């Protein structure tokens, strides 16, 4: 069968969006691990990371959709529309395309449950979200198996870089979760952090301690809050 320029364009689009998809999904997983562990980007509010995680996952969805659409319309190989969602139903490379279908199904489940998260229980949402950890290696295997360019170094390097990024994030998650406080103690820890920061900031401004009248908040023995939280003295602030 003679390939036209349009066919070649479809083939390349399919491959390129596939590669972009795996990179974006890797970023989604890494940001997701940080969101889970309440990480933050330097100088940004914590919600920025959550927004990144959500927005990049939607971007990944766009690339995945183009990728699977190309697989169907591309005349070079014969992949039926059903094979996109039904594993191992493809005439072309049934095993590797089947893995892609599995990954597509799992990621779709994760995405839909996240879109209707307000309408479902937290635990069921969480259980489905854990499917990500199953879907991502399957997607990576699909990429390795179907890629026709694996002899080219850049594609191998990219794949292994993605794998390394997820492995590092997961390792960090395990370490961080071991250090995490139980829910009931988190607020207290954060409050003393905030008080310490405030005391340090106030000490940095080097304000001369006010000379308080007898019964003002600055007086010793003022009862609201612990003394450490009331940086009015001077020496006890560090």
């Amino acid at each position, binding site marked *: 069968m003679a390939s036209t320029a349009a066919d070649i364009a479809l083939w390349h689009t399919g491959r390129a969006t596939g590669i972009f998809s795996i990179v974006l999904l890797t970023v989604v997983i890494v940001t997701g691990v940080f969101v889970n562990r*309440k990480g933050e980007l330097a100088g940004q*509010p914590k919600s920025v990371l959550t927004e990144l995680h959500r927005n990049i996952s939607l971007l990944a969805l766009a690339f995945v959709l183009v990728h699977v659409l190309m697989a169907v319309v591309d005349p070079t190989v014969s992949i039926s529309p059903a094979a996109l969602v039904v594993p191992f139903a493809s005439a072309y490379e049934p095993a590797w395309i089947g893995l892609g279908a599995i990954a597509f199904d799992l990621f779709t489940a994760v995405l839909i449950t996240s879109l209707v998260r307000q309408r479902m*229980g937290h635990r069921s949402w969480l259980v489905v979200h854990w499917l990500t950890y199953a879907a991502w290696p399957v997607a990576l295997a699909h990429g390795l198996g179907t890629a026709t360019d694996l002899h080219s170094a850049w594609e191998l390097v990219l794949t292994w870089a993605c794998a390394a990024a997820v492995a590092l994030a997961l390792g960090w998650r395990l370490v961080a979760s071991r250090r995490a406080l139980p829910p009931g103690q988190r607020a207290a820890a*954060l409050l003393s952090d905030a008080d310490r920061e*405030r005391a340090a900031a106030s000490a940095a*401004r080097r304000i001369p301690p006010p000379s308080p009248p007898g019964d*003002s908040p600055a007086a010793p023995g003022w009862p609201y809050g612990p003394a450490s939280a009331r940086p009015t003295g001077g020496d006890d602030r560090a």
Partner: protein
Amino acid sequence: MTLSGGLTGARGGGAPGTPGTPGTPVAGLGRLLPAGAGAPAGLGRHLEEHGPPPYGDGQGLIAAVEAAGLTGRGGAAFPTHRKLRAAAGAREAGQPPVVVANGAESEPASMKDKTLLAFCPHLVLDGLQLAAGAVGAREAYLYVHRDADLSRGLRDALAERAAHCPDPVAVRLVEAPARFLAGEKTALANRISGGAALPRYGWPPVSRSGVRGAPTLVQNVETLAHIALIARHGPGWFRELGTDAEPGSMICTVHAEGGPPRVTEIAIGSPLDSVADLAIPATQAVLIGGYHGTWVPAIEAPGLPLANAALRPLGAALGAGVIAALPARRCGLAESASVARYLALESAGQCGPCLNALPRIASALAALADLRPPPETGANLLRWADLVEHRGACHHPDGTVRFVRSALVVFAHELAGHEAGRCGATDPAPFLPVPEVPPGNRDWK
């Protein structure tokens, strides 16, 4: 007839933070709380005074509650008949509902539910039985904060009923830790199901899936006591007090200088200054509703009707019926900072926005309560308040932000003073009761 009066509660020798213990009854409206009697009402005196509860006509009772216009007295003021209808509907759909009397009074400044349970447990238990009968429930629970004295009294009351006039539905007493969020309805459902008293996402609502997945009707204990009286006296009698839109009476906890807090039954719509002495300049502001409530400047108080319709324009609501008249000699910012610190520590630590923002907000408010706060503190606080709103599974962040914002508005003059290095307060004694958040008991069970 005096509108106020009722029970005075000793605040544990004046030390803030000790749970309110019910005290000596004095004259009051006398609907829910016994007038002029010093002892808790036993079953004999309860039956003598009120007669047996009229069981049998469930639909009629729901219609009577609707005609009476009774709303939930736990704080949200949701129409009670709608919750009853929903539970009865679940029964018809083949899912027998569970009924829970919620006496886990979490607002530290509120003592009305504890007092009601201590003095009139049988009125509450009548209401629980009537509600269970009306919605066809086979399981009923009485849910309270863990408190040995209160539980002993309630167990005695339940035993007395079992011995003398067995209830149609057996009632089980369930205790939760005395944490702020333990009375939240999803936390309640989790706890009664055997888990931790922690809130979850609001969906599905407990009216659909609550205690062990069953449709669950949760009513505040005072609401149930009102149901017990409406069943006996009818909606017309109930509407003799209150306003057309908000009929009936409610129990308030009134904090004012120079005495222990008073638990008092008032007609809804009574002027605020008839409930507490609010003379200016001795009083500077009134906290209405509780620690998820709103500060109202004392200048607004004279003649202000205690009804949600009148409070709404001020951004306030009756909530759990807490009324605290802050004396002019206290620092409103320091009081608010101490409450905000308590609320931050009571975050369940489950939702990121609440967990991360409330401690920062509390710390910033503490800075504003100090002299010469860093100049960006107020702006940061308001920014964090905007970020956290509507982003929790439960309403804890929203209620906390409402309280803190109202403090910054009402005590703006004080804030200006602090920035200039002055504090208008002359009395350092804490006014609002703020419990120590226990370092132990971290499993919320």
